[in-house]
């Protein structure tokens, strides 16, 4: 459909959002990401039955931790969408890019920003 969206997204393909680990997210922030979002299938649609629900639990745990350690949990989000919703993905990409721009660069790199990119972990669902 070639819908246009913000260029600041870098996608990491996974087998299922259920494969996401707290440390991978924390590592992304430590390495310089300004924002991370995990994209999983619609709840109930997961081909591996409950992968995306586990992912949601872990993302919430990391959000709480990010608040505690000062990065701010709202730099991390999880979205549920199906592979047919190209439009929705573009919408998310633009929304999160705007939101992260408001929040400003990663506090860890306030002075020397590494490459100003915001990576995203897309839990590929096929």
């Amino acid at each position: 459909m070639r819908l246009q969206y913000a260029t600041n997204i870098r996608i990491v393909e996974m087998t299922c959002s259920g494969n996401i680990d707290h440390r991978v997210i924390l590592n992304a922030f430590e390495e310089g990401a300004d924002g991370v979002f995990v994209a999983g299938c619609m709840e109930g649609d997961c081909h591996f039955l409950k992968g995306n629900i586990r992912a949601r639990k872990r993302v919430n745990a990391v959000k709480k931790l990010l608040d505690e350690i000062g990065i701010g949990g709202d730099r991390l989000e999880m979205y549920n969408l199906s592979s047919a919703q190209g439009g929705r993905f573009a919408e998310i990409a633009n929304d999160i890019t705007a939101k992260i721009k408001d929040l400003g660069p990663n506090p860890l790199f306030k002075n020397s920003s590494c490459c100003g990119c915001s990576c995203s972990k897309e839990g590929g669902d096929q």
Partner: protein
Amino acid sequence: MIIAQQKQIKEIAAMVSDCKKVALIGCAGCVTVCLSGGEKETEIMAAALRIMRKLEGNPVETITFTATRQCDPEYVEALDGVVKDADAIISLACGVGVQYLAERFDKWVVPALDTNFIGGSKVHGVWEEKCGMCGDCVLHKTGGICPIIRCSKSILNGPCGGSQYGKCEISKDVDCAWQLIYDRMKSLGKLDKLMAIQPPKDWTKSRDGGPRRAVREDVMIG
């Protein structure tokens, strides 16, 4: 197994606020099974600590390692190389582990977990206390239900009369242990055994006798 849960990250950070280099030691024993101190949690805590300290402008270097167990000298000795130039050690083991490390290394050793109780998993992610380590087990008298730990007053000749609808007077979510014992013994047809009056408990076998030791001459080596 021993059930323990993590302290708040802020509290842990405060314990090592002045250290430049910190070793975080996980334990692959009970605390891994109860999901609070395994390699995953250790590395998460290390990352969180590094990020916090960097944000405070007082960066810290972390070393992470997960021992097979922290309650056997050999496994603790294996950590010598890991912790040698660390200013402080954070142990993610139960209380036993922390003390072994403290004994072994003349470094500042701090606990990352609060050791809660001995128990088991009810459902994945929920654990329940089952044994109070009184050192003189009475389970054979109560059909396998421990009055010491599961009755709030730890009485031996219950119920105390305060229970309602089988729930303890302290809270309607807590079963009255003696109600459970009574039902259990009734179903096993051994109600008569409950009639015997139990003498006062010999608490010396428990904590009150001071720290305890268990010695097995037959297996001692050398």
